């Protein structure tokens, strides 16, 4: 039997605690989650939300109070870049068919798909957080893939990570990525305002008159879905009529989990507007997925939502009623998920 002799560095590491600092930047706040680990596991953890989406002296002081405990501290951050996404291939020649990644930093996930982000955005974040320094930067798609690890490998479904000001949407068919898109809620404000008005007033059909690309997309999407109704009869019946009548495609286990979660979590909805905005973004994205010839389009029946902000039941209602999807919402603590990935990175 061979005994592994620890190197000097490993020996030093064993003497100190490892401090994992995880920062998630939201629309108007920063969440900092800190975990202190030793060889046997988590020693302590702490979470603090600051009312600023940038590095303030308070955040700096808070982080320093932990990082000064040990030289082995790792600061992780969730990438909030607008121009990020994922591509359903790892083949370098195929990548250009989907996206021009010459100005992007990208990595391959399990030799199956690529996630990318803008290089200059990384530099920008690194410069903004120069005082504390950044060790790891993770894509929300990686967080999503790890969070729904149990579902991705076995189902064909859409997986959405709902963040404060963005959505990371992906479609997996038994661990194979079919489609992915990062949707930022701040960009399409104007068009959304129109959408919201319409949504409140009357039928979506009326939007045909507006010469707005997004609105047109939405209508198309709805039309497409109507056309596709023939394929999804069972799902439609299940979702519209009686949920008790379980279909094969429904994830009963997840529903039960969801119900339990709903009881626990208060309905701290961020408002009807935001949820509708999210819905419309999802709708238009799904439409692009069905329409685009670049992606292998498979009919979606289930959607799994990792909710980090506490969406209202409206979003679920919209998705179920307008898109005839089975919606499962799972609450996610984004910062601690980032921490989990950081731990995987350290091993």
């Amino acid at each position, binding site marked *: 039997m061979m005994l592994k002799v620890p190197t000097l560095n490993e020996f030093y590491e064993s*003497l100190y605690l490892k401090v994992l600092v995880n920062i998630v930047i939201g629309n108007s706040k920063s969440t900092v989650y800190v975990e202190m680990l030793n060889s046997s596991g988590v020693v302590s953890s702490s979470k603090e939300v600051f009312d600023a989406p940038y590095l303030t002296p308070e955040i700096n002081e808070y982080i320093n109070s932990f990082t000064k405990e040990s030289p082995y501290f790792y600061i992780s951050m969730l990438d909030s870049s607008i121009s990020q996404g994922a591509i359903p291939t790892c083949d370098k020649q195929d990548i250009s068919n989907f996206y021009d990644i010459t100005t992007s930093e990208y990595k391959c*996930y399990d030799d199956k798909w690529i996630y990318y*982000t803008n290089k200059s955005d*990384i530099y920008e974040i690194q410069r903004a957080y120069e005082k504390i320094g950044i*060790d*790891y930067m993770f*894509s929300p798609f*990686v967080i999503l893939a790890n969070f729904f690890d149990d579902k991705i490998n076995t189902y064909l479904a859409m997986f959405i990570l709902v963040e404060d000001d963005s959505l990371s949407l992906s479609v997996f068919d038994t661990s194979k990525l079919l489609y992915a898109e990062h949707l930022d809620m701040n960009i399409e404000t104007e068009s959304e305002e129109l959408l919201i008005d319409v949504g409140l007033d009357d039928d979506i059909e009326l939007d045909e008159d507006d010469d707005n690309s997004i609105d047109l997309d939405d209508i198309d999407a709805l039309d497409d879905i109507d056309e596709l109704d023939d394929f999804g009869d069972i799902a439609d019946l299940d979702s519209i009529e009686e949920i008790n009548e379980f279909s094969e495609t429904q994830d009963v286990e997840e529903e039960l989990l969801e119900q339990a979660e709903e009881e626990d979590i208060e309905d701290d909805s961020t408002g009807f507007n935001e949820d509708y905005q999210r819905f419309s973004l999802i709708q238009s994205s799904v439409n692009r997925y069905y329409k685009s010839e670049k992606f292998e389009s498979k009919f979606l029946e289930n959607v799994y939502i990792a909710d980090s902000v506490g969406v209202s039941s409206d979003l679920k209602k919209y998705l179920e009623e307008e898109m005839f999807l089975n919606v499962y919402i799972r609450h996610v603590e984004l910062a601690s998920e980032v921490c989990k990935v950081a731990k995987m*990175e350290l091993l």
Partner: protein
Amino acid sequence: MKYSYIKPRKKSIFTSEIQLLIVFFGITIFMLFLTYFFLVFKDYRFTQDKIDMIAQRENADISIVDMEKKITYIEKQVILSESIFTKNTVLKDSIANMFDLVPQRITLSEAKLLENGLVLYGIAPNKDVYDFMLQAPLRSIFHRTYSSFYPADNGWIRFVSTNYVDKEVEVVEEEMLLEDAEMIDEDATDYEEVEYEN
């Protein structure tokens, strides 16, 4: 770097504080070692000096003993020389006295000064002159006086007078002289026999 876009910064336990601490303790330890080696060197020098001093003292002791011996010897020589000088003075006086003693009418041909006696050879006009003029004072000086006569060619008489003094006081002095003779194998001056031609 499995999932992260960027590589983590290199972590080291040697933070700036630790580095400062190491430098500080390093300098302190270096100075302590410097002091230690300085003291060790000084101690070595001191030990060497001590050994040298002991050797010097031993040499000095040896030379003191030697010098003391020499001093003793010189003192003895002084005593000896003094005694010789005294003896010589005494001898000189004795000789002067002897010549004063001898009257005009008696002629000495040979005189032997012995350690404890005097032997006189000479010629006198007759025995009476000898008896009255010379033997009488000799008798008063010496304890024992022996005289013998035989006739000379011109009708006078030749005499041999042997006179002795019985010594008691000078025994100690003799012993010392003998000791001296042992110490130095020098040419012992034969001052016992002084020949004097008249």
